[in-house]
């Protein structure tokens, strides 16, 4: 009897581990920047390169920083939802145009629509590194004091917005 019970128990435990493993998302590395002040940046604007825009310009607002690029395929998937979000106007969205060509980025926005209040250019990816960006798109929720409250890795979806981000936005805006 024992001969069968022990291997069976080992098997059940193993299956348990594998089952939990299936539901993990190893690609989503938790950011150490949550609840920390967002790294300061002052970058040139995508649409008007002679002007600059920085973190300080968003002080006092609850806003989204969306890291995007015209070469990023998932950004295309995410884009329609960002357009809807911009239309709803709950929070301003600032784009961080990550390691892109200026012309490509401007064309991309002209073709698919511009959900951003402002896009800033991070051509060499340094600001991206400061934000711990490792895969585009990524979206940061930043509060009135410039503290990062949430990070969405991968495309922002209606579901993620409703379930996680919107309640947080409401709490932070209250």
């Amino acid at each position, binding site marked *: 009897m024992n001969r069968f019970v022990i291997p069976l128990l080992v098997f059940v435990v193993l299956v348990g581990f594998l089952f939990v493993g299936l539901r993990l998302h190893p690609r989503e*590395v938790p*950011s*150490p*920047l949550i609840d920390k002040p967002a790294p300061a940046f002052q970058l040139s604007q995508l649409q008007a390169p002679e002007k600059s825009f920085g973190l300080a310009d968003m002080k006092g607002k609850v806003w989204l920083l969306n890291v995007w690029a015209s070469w990023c395929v998932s950004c295309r998937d995410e884009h329609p939802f960002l357009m809807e979000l911009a239309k709803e106007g709950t929070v301003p969205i600032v784009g961080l145009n990550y390691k892109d060509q200026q012309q490509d980025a401007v064309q991309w926005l002209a073709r698919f629509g511009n959900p951003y209040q402002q896009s800033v250019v991070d051509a060499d*990816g340094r600001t991206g590194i400061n934000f*711990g960006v*490792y895969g585009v798109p990524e979206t940061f929720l930043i509060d009135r004091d410039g503290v990062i409250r949430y990070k969405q890795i991968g495309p922002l979806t209606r579901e993620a917005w409703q379930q996680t981000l919107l309640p947080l936005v409401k709490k932070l805006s209250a």
Partner: protein
Amino acid sequence: MIRRALLALLIALSGAVAVAREAPPAAEDPALEARLHALSTELRCLVCQNETLAESRAPLANDLRREIRDMMRAGKSDREITQFLVSRYGDFVLYRPPVKSTTVALWVGPFVLLGLGVAGWFVVLRRRARRIAVQPLTAEDRGLAQALLGSDTARKTP
């Protein structure tokens, strides 16, 4: 004659190619590159998660190597550089994460499993030893053995 000239040209060109290929590393600071390599083999690339920063060809890995190079040139210590990366990407970038409450299972787990395995092994061995305990020979067995072994063994035994 022409053939010989062509051959000479070819040899000269192949030499030029070989030189061109080896030139870039020599142009940079070899000591710094060695230090960069040593440090980046300890760091994980976030894009291809099972590769080190030294091996990875991902664009982000390139950028991070550039950052590390710049920091090294600026005289930052390895510890400061790792701290820079950990503060942005978390302990996940370290192939040797520090011992913390969240990483205890990672560090101690294998030894616990090893201990369990050794304990199980001892239990099995002990049970087996008990099962094959020495059984004294009965008179009947002894007689049988003597018959098999022959008379000279029988004479010697008291």
